[in-house]
């Protein structure tokens, strides 16, 4: 063969040992090829901005005198982080979402599990219709839903406030005592259906023999649910919990919209609102610092939860 064409390599049989070798290399190559688009996009869209934010968080914009001349950017070390940890408004925003999450996430997931089990039970009628109804709030864009709720809550236009007034109760859903519960209610309304769907899909995947065997052994519907179904959907419950932790830590839509009508919802109500606020008042380095802290905390919480559940049993 004086001249070789690229086709030759494919057409000619090769000895076994080299075959193994090249196929190993080929695997690596195709893996790299297949992963490349993801890797590129992930780097460009996720890693680079995260890296940039971390980088920005170590700098500070300095002005001098009246500040009407050009400004300089100086290395600040961990100054911004020290400021953030001493920033009472920023810290209390964490406490706020934490308080909210501790109550709202279990309530919402309990409700989602209950609805999923009801849909999955033998006697359930109109399964499709109910599934759609439960899922409907999630299909509504978050901001639109929040605007709707802000009208339902605002004292001057709220039908609930008016109805309660008729029976002699004066309730302001946006008062300091109730506003956090009102936000929790909005989140529960919006996300229960979504979580229900994930749990319901997991229930569908349980082999029929399992539940049948339990019924043969004399289990009632509730006992089947408790002893067979719930353990089987544990992975789905863990997944939805992690999603909810991340979602609550990044709570934005509901308080951002409510802040227009609720005097108690400050511009630094949640960590992400506080971050946004820093950017709004042109303190970009501090906003970057706050984002990094929020990301780290979310990471620690969600992975902490995962590790915790794995420790207790096998995580499928």
């Amino acid at each position: 063969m004086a001249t070789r064409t690229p086709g030759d390599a494919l057409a000619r049989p090769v000895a076994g040992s080299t075959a193994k070798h090249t196929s190993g290399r080929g695997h690596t190559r195709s893996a790299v090829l297949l992963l490349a688009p993801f890797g590129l996009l992930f780097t460009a869209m996720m890693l680079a901005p995260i890296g940039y934010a971390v980088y920005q968080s170590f700098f500070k914009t300095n002005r001098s005198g009246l500040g009407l001349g050009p400004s300089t950017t100086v290395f600040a070390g961990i100054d911004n982080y020290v400021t953030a940890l001493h920033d009472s408004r920023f810290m209390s925003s964490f406490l706020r979402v934490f308080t909210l999450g501790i109550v709202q996430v279990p309530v919402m997931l309990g409700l989602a599990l209950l609805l999923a089990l009801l849909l999955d039970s033998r006697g359930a009628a109109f399964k499709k219709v109910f599934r759609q109804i439960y899922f409907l709030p999630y299909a509504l864009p978050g901001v639109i839903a929040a605007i709707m709720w802000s009208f339902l809550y605002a004292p001057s236009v709220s039908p609930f406030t008016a109805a309660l007034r008729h029976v002699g109760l004066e309730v302001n859903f946006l008062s300091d005592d109730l506003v956090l519960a009102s936000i929790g209610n909005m989140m529960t309304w919006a996300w229960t259906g979504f979580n229900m769907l994930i749990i319901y899909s997991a229930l569908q995947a349980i082999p029929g023999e399992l539940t049948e065997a339990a019924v043969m052994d004399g289990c009632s519907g509730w006992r089947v649910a408790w002893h067979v179904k719930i353990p089987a959907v544990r992975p789905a419950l863990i997944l939805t919990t992690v999603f909810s932790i991340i979602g609550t830590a990044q709570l934005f839509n509901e308080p951002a919209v409510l802040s227009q009508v609720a005097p108690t919802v400050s511009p630094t109500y949640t960590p992400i609102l506080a971050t946004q606020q820093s950017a709004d008042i042109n303190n970009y380095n501090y906003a970057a610092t706050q984002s990094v802290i929020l990301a780290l905390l979310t990471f620690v919480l969600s992975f902490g939860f995962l590790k915790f559940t794995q420790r207790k049993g096998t995580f499928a």
Partner: protein
Amino acid sequence: MLTVASLVTLSACSGSGDSGGSSSDGKPVTVEFWGSAVGLDKSVALWNKSHPDIKVKYSQIPPGSIGGYAKMQNAVKAGNAPCLGQVGYDTLSNFIATGALEDISQYADSSKGNFVPWTWQMTSVGDQVFGIPVDTGPMALYYRTDLFKKYKISPPKTWDDFAAAAEKVHTANPSAYLTTTPQDAYDIGALTWQAGGKWFGTANDRWQVTIDNPQTKKVGQYWQGLLDKKLVTSEPMLDTAWFKEVQDGQLLSLVSAVWAAPLISKNLPELSGKWAVAPMPQWTAGQQAAGNRGGSATVVLKGCEHPKQATEFATWLSTNTDSVTSLIKNTGIYPAATSGQNLPAVDQPSAYFGGQNIYDVFKTAAANTSTGWVWGPTMSQVQSDMKDGLKKAGAGQGTIPNAVTSVQDSTVAAMKSQGLSVGN
């Protein structure tokens, strides 16, 4: 492929001298303009009709304090800002401090004489010029004539009379209130301005911050007193809920600037003929002191490729007779250009206000507005903190004077953290 059209440049009718608008290669240039005032687009349309060589592309953005300024600042930071933006005098220092504006003195200096002196001071620092003034915000009391008659009150001459009137109205009808409390930094700033106080000053290359000055404290205590007695409500003026309550006869008046007139008439057309304007209530009987709320400039944002053409348009917007007349009619501005203040549009009776020539009141107010007011370099932060504090005070958490004190502290802290010199 390419055909270069040779364009005949039409000379602008404004007195800006040179009007060679097109770029050096003879192609028409496009200048982007972000504004939030209703009616700016009409002036832009007039310009585009008569200036084929400089096309202005207008985009409506939210008002500054509810996101518009952040949008502009972020665009500058990202390097894709429009050439022109509408920025209130109150936030100009903020924009200058963040390096978001171009110095346009070389194109704008010649126009200085066309504007009311204090507005030019608002838009310049030393010999640098950062914007062309558009309007000012002289203030007055807007009130419902029919309801004032019903509750037997006359337009209050002093703030004491005003408090008495608030009591009279609310006693007569527990669901009616004379007005609402100041809602943000611009409201309370304007009332301080009228009372003769100052929030900021500069001397020896240092900022003085006196947000908790005696006058602001006095204003704060006054409104807190009305709040404590539940004689006023606390909610944002001129928004949906506010208009509804005015319509239901639950709110009778507001102290606001001249630009509120078209907002009231457009949103409450059915109340035509039932409104009038009176001078602001006074702290000292017999005086005519007025505050100024708002007023804005057209600025050239950092990175603009055509600062000369942008400045040319901005100057025309503020001085051209047709443009200013349109802004008076549609936006309700009170012009910053001296020529604009003599236009027939700011000197005629208005049917909506029962045939009153409301500009008489605003002209007097403008003439009695002190001109030494200075805005600080971190007004975005001041506005945000003040709004939050006032909202909470309105809801019964904390008081207005306490909000003022805490904004004083947070402002000094914010300025120092940026390395600015604060002191006396």
